[in-house]
């Protein structure tokens, strides 16, 4: 079976116009809202992280299923592969942060005379921060490139060695990711509130990433199917993606609650300092995030029919994606802009610009390679996927 996705003019225009609207809104917002440097950089960081999460999850999705010997996902492998193509751009955008360090990270200021931050200086210092950033991206981009290249080679050659090599690469990726996903979230998010610390933080970020990634893959499947592609993706595949979205939304809540409960219960000032501004200055948003990211998908996807209905599932995926953007917003904002933060033209403009760019990269890379992998020994299982 051959299938190749062609990027239609209409789609291309659509994507570019999203980016265009973004730029327009940014210009408009710049003059109307006259944001300060801090707000601009905070927005850059939020969207950097958000789209990095989705792109990086492409690699996680591939690697996890590969090492678990899953067969069902094989037919939709190219979608997460396309997501990982955004990683190099993420890297470039992340390095831009260099110019906004002082606006985002309080610890990067010189001469703070803060004994706690001085104690952390061995880890939290600007050169090491960027060395680590470089290392993370090197690992992620390198390993996802190899994973993708491996399946492309496999398309041409039915040798089983690609399957075995894929497993090794996937294991390597998972090991690298397991460490880097935690350290990344300490570096880029936790250190915004430089005094605060939570051991759970990295895992909490990871599960948020999981949910965003699954929601994005669901939407891409829905889009491609609406264009007449992916006929071999049946209700069972959709059902499984729905189960993922359902289960990991619950899991996300579990981790959120674990962290909150323990800090709330122990009531140690060093730790509650994190939740205090969130609960006073951003109270509505704080609880909205929980409703959108947990309560809504939990109730909306509880029944079997809901998980198998692609239209409804896509709707839930969109809502959850908005919810997780707000979650990232809530992670970054209180420590950078603080009380005065508001979601306005600038915020929406940034999202639109990033979204346009992201979709452009993903769709062009989807169009570059055949939409269906070949020669994977487990591919046949994916076609005969039943309960």
């Amino acid at each position: 079976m051959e299938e190749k996705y062609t990027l239609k003019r209409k789609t291309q225009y659509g994507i570019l116009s999203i980016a265009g609207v973004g730029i327009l809104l940014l210009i408009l917002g710049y003059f109307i809202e006259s944001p300060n440097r801090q707000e601009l950089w905070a927005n850059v960081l939020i969207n950097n992280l958000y789209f990095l999460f989705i792109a990086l999850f492409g690699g996680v999705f591939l690697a996890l299923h590969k090492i678990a010997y899953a067969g069902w996902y094989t037919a939709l492998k190219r979608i997460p592969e396309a997501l990982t193509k955004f990683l190099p751009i993420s890297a470039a955008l992340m390095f831009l942060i260099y110019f906004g360090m002082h606006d985002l990270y309080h610890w990067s200021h010189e001469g703070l005379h803060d004994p706690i931050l001085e104690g952390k200086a061995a880890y939290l210092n600007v050169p090491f921060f960027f060395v680590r950033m470089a290392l993370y991206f090197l690992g992620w981009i390198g390993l996802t490139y190899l994973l993708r290249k491996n399946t492309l080679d496999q398309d041409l050659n039915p040798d089983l060695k690609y399957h075995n090599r894929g497993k090794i690469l996937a294991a390597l990726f998972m090991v690298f990711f397991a460490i880097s996903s935690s350290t990344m979230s300490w570096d880029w998010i936790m250190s915004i509130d430089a005094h605060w610390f939570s051991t759970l933080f990295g895992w909490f970020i990871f599960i948020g990433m999981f949910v965003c990634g699954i929601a994005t893959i669901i939407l891409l499947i829905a889009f491609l199917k609406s264009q007449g592609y992916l006929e071999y993706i049946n209700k069972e595949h959709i059902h499984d993606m729905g189960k993922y979205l359902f289960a990991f939304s619950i899991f996300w809540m579990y981790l959120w609650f674990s962290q909150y409960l323990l800090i709330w219960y122990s009531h140690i000032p060093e730790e509650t300092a994190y939740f205090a501004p969130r609960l006073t200055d951003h109270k509505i948003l704080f609880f909205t995030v929980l409703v959108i990211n947990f309560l809504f998908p939990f109730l909306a996807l509880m029944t079997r029919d809901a998980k198998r209905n692609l239209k409804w599932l896509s709707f839930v995926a969109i809502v959850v994606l908005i919810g997780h953007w707000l979650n990232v917003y809530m992670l970054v904002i209180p420590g950078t802009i603080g009380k005065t933060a508001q979601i306005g033209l600038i915020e929406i403009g940034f999202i639109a610009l990033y979204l346009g760019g992201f979709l452009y990269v993903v769709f062009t890379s989807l169009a570059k390679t055949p939409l269906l992998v070949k020669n994977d020994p487990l591919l046949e299982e994916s076609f005969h996927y039943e309960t």
Partner: protein
Amino acid sequence: MYVSPIREPLVTGKKTYKKITDEISAPIEGKPGKAWYAGITLTVSALLLGLAMMGYTIWEGIGTWGLNKTIGWGWGITNFVWWVGIGHAGTFISAILLLFRQKWRTSINRSAEAMTLFAVMCAGLFPLIHMGRPLLGFFVFPYPNTRELWVNFNSPLLWDVFAISTYFTVSLLFWYVGLIPDIGTIRDRMKSKFKKWIYGLLSFGWTGSAKHWQRHESISLILAGLAAPLVLSVHSIVSTDFATSVIPGWHTTIFPPYFVAGAIFSGFAMVLTLLIITRKVLHLENYITVGHIESMNKIIIATGSIVGIAYITELFIAWYSGVEYEQYAFLNRATGPYWWAYWIMMTCNVISPQLLWFKKLRRNLVFTFILSIFINIGMWFERFVIIVTSLHRDYLPSSWSMYEPTMVEVGIFIGTLGLFFTCFLLFIRVFPVIAIAEVKSVLKSSGDQKDKSETKEKH
């Protein structure tokens, strides 16, 4: 259902449906061998020792334990957490692996779930004994009483009561619902009238009707869906016993998920320890194949690595926090008077499972068996390290102290080991160790016969 030819068969030896029934029912029908009698003698003696020590503790009081004012929790709670942890593999296998459509679970879920129940029974004993007056144990339940008081719903210890009793009950329901069809099988095979009557009673009148099967499948799936978050919740709640406090080394937010990973890790180790022997003694090598062992080893390495990352995260964040007490707590763990416990834990839990990256070792039974014992020991020490080293040097240096267990505590621990293995030995004589119906349902797709029709008996 199509299964790729590169997948290893899950049932080997070209089985037919009849052969599966015959072979799995054999241990129930035959007479136990010498090994079984030797085993049960040993475990019952251990159990009797434990009972004697428990009796002594209750008669004399908790003063017979090595606890003191600084270290109020010692072996008792260590064992409690250890046993609850071991009780996590069973429901993980039958619930989470069912949801993830892992067919290899069908050969191991029954015995693993039985282990869950026995382990939770052992775990529950410790808080009960530690109360000092176990006859007043019912005080933990919120019932209208003459003291006009409610139990403290703010206390993690009370959450434990609910978590563990719910876990035990739901696991029991899940296990028994799964057992009903297999008990039906045993009932229909029994020759003696009395045994037939007993199994008939236990089988709840199972007939194998299509409508029953439909409901049975539906309930299994939904119970799995409920049991999956339940597994996560139980050890999370156990971890809050420590983590809601303000003790450095106890209060850390990673505890709930990290305890769960550790629990599954230790649970799988215990499942491996027992099944490697069981498959040999009961001649079930065709059902619990080396492939099954390898799959379990993969879960061991995954959960073991998660636990390792959690250890390192704790260590790093303790330094990063800049909190003097946090930093000292972890320094003291690694280099203080209990350094040996810490390094036993590190070696057994983090370093040794890394050997499983080698496929050869994953498929080596002797190695796996030894490693599984290592992990059991390592995970016991993990709880010991968390509990005792965090407590023994608290905020007030004048009350720093050391703890060592008395013979009474050791005896009670040995007693619970006795209880656990006695229950398991009885279980394998009474109920099928492998889910007969479930194995049959994967035979066509995952057996090793060339032709699908070879599953029926030849005439």
